[in-house]
């Protein structure tokens, strides 16, 4: 008789994790980044969303250690005079929010579709063809299309408010087939196993077998692709922002910060682009490194690339 915590402490997962310095480092960095971004309202020195505190006279100030820098703005300011550090923290929060939100949506749709098409043979063909059609549209096409419609519908000011949920929906809709396929493949493998037949012999209903018996056993591959997908979603959002279809500059994400700074890079204000760029790259990198570990740990053969 052991508690969950004891089980966890003795588990192979923890042991494997503690033996992998890359995984530990990535985890620590990721935890730090996530913590600082969500604690931004408390720890950030300025509030970039509050226009009353922003002074256009501070615009394009260099980082503190360079001539022309001020100790008030550690990493300098952007073209509108916002503190880079604070803006980046807030921006990372938006990026992570969109990334995680989009992945939750993807996973939700994908798992339902995958379960249904794997377990209800009649639906399989239709749902999978539907997924193929969805995959053949690229994320950007969907985004450009929906983004353009919404922007004309709400106007620029209204777009600010709906931008985050909109991006979540766009990225979420674009990539659910990944989940659907993964879940379907493992449902097909699981449904042949004898414990599913045993559940049928007990007389449990299909829905209950699906949710209670099959679903928990398909979650390992879902976890594996989730880490990769979060990184992908954050990248998608950054790319969309870079194209001007993502977060507006008043509520910047890391992607839109990079875009915004891009204009000034040749006028010498490199920090507006470079710092968010570094942050974005490190965020994606640690997520992917951690994802690699999860993949290797859970199933060395399952999902490559």
């Amino acid at each position, binding site marked *: 008789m052991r508690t969950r915590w004891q089980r966890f402490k003795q588990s192979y997962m923890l042991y494997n994790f503690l033996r992998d310095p890359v995984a530990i480092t990535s985890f620590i960095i990721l935890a730090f980044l996530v913590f600082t971004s969500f604690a931004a309202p408390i720890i950030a020195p300025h509030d970039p969303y509050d226009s009353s505190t922003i002074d256009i006279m501070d615009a394009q100030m260099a980082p503190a250690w360079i001539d022309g820098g001020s100790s008030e703005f550690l990493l300098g300011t952007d073209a509108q005079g916002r503190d880079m550090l604070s803006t980046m923290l807030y921006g990372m929060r938006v990026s992570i929010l969109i990334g995680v939100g989009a992945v939750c949506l993807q996973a939700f749709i994908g798992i339902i579709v995958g379960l249904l098409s794997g377990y209800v043979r009649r639906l399989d063909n239709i749902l999978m063809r539907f997924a193929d059609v969805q995959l053949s549209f690229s994320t950007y096409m969907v985004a450009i299309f929906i983004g353009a419609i919404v922007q004309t519908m709400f106007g620029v000011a209204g777009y600010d408010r709906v931008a985050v949920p909109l991006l979540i929906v766009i990225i979420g809709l674009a990539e659910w087939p990944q989940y659907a396929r993964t879940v379907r493949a493992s449902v097909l493998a699981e449904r042949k196993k004898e414990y599913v037949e*045993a559940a049928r012999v007990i007389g449990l209903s299909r829905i209950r077998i699906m949710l209670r018996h099959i679903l928990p056993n398909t979650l390992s591959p879902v976890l594996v692709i989730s880490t990769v997908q979060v990184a992908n979603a954050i990248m998608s959002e950054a790319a969309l922002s870079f194209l001007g279809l993502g977060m507006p500059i008043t509520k910047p994400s890391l992607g839109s910060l990079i875009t915004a700074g891009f204009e000034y890079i040749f006028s010498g204000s490199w920090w507006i682009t470079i710092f968010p760029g570094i942050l974005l790259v490190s965020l994606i990198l640690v997520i992917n490194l951690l994802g690699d570990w999860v993949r290797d740990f859970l199933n060395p053969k399952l999902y490559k690339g």
Partner: protein
Amino acid sequence: MSAILEIHDVDKHFDISGSFLDQLQLSKGKITRKRTVVKAVNNVTLDIQPGETLSIVGESGCGKSTLARTVMGLYKPNKGTISYRGDRIDHLNSVKMLPYRTKMQMVFQDPYASLNPRMNVRQILEEPVRFHNPDLSRSEIKARVSEVMLQVGVDPVWASNYPHEFSGGQRQRISIARALVVDPEFIAADEPIAALDVSIQAQILNLLMDAQEQRGLTYLFISHDLSVVEHISTRVAVMYLGCICELATAKELFSNPKHPYTQALLSAIPRLGGKIGGHVRLSGDVPTPINLPSGCAFSGRCPHVNERCMQEIPAQLKLESGSVVACHGIEEGRI
């Protein structure tokens, strides 16, 4: 004595031709639709008497598991009827089937695949009880589960452990407990000891026999270990390519096998301290259930085959000894 389970003229075929497009074939300039059907079980008629152990033996792929699964309602038969104590159960939907689910249970072969790896023993065993008796209280369910766990020899202290923490033999005990916990009358055991160690097999067999004695169970027992079958069965059915070729009491079958296939099968059992080489050599290969021979299923390998065997499917013949044999040779008195 009325049978607990009657299987009458049951066929189970699997269509493995895939989707519509896969079925289309180009032959001689014409597109035709071709289906590939696995005839796993053909014209099987059996009755199982209360309290007995009816064993099914036969080569791998002859349809033993398919028959058991059809009986359990996991597959719908293509033809024929299955009745439980006189009531037809083969065409029931899952809700109408529920009352029979507590009476008929199944134990599977693979102790590693037959327990859900994400549920602990308590969840595995409590689920069927709670599902079939929604108004039992928590403590009643718990008591019932503990009682069954004790009966199968798994200490209830281990209830919060997960299946991977148990050995194969213990897992098989848990599987048996899951079948027993709804208090069934009939259990289909599909090779319950095939994946276990020799020294553990006896433990599980004893457990099955004890449970039968205490609860008056009826077994449909599938195995390819003939010496085990000889020991525990009341009657034995020998299957070959989906057909039953001989059905007799265990004593009669093992002392006086009639059907040429049964004779070959029995002669091949390795005997402790015996000499190898005395077995009946079967010529030819096991045909696949996709292309069944037109006559007797065994005609391709039978040493006593004649023209009629190739053309006509033999009917089940009841002999004086009470056994049932499907063989033209015996009918004609040739063998």
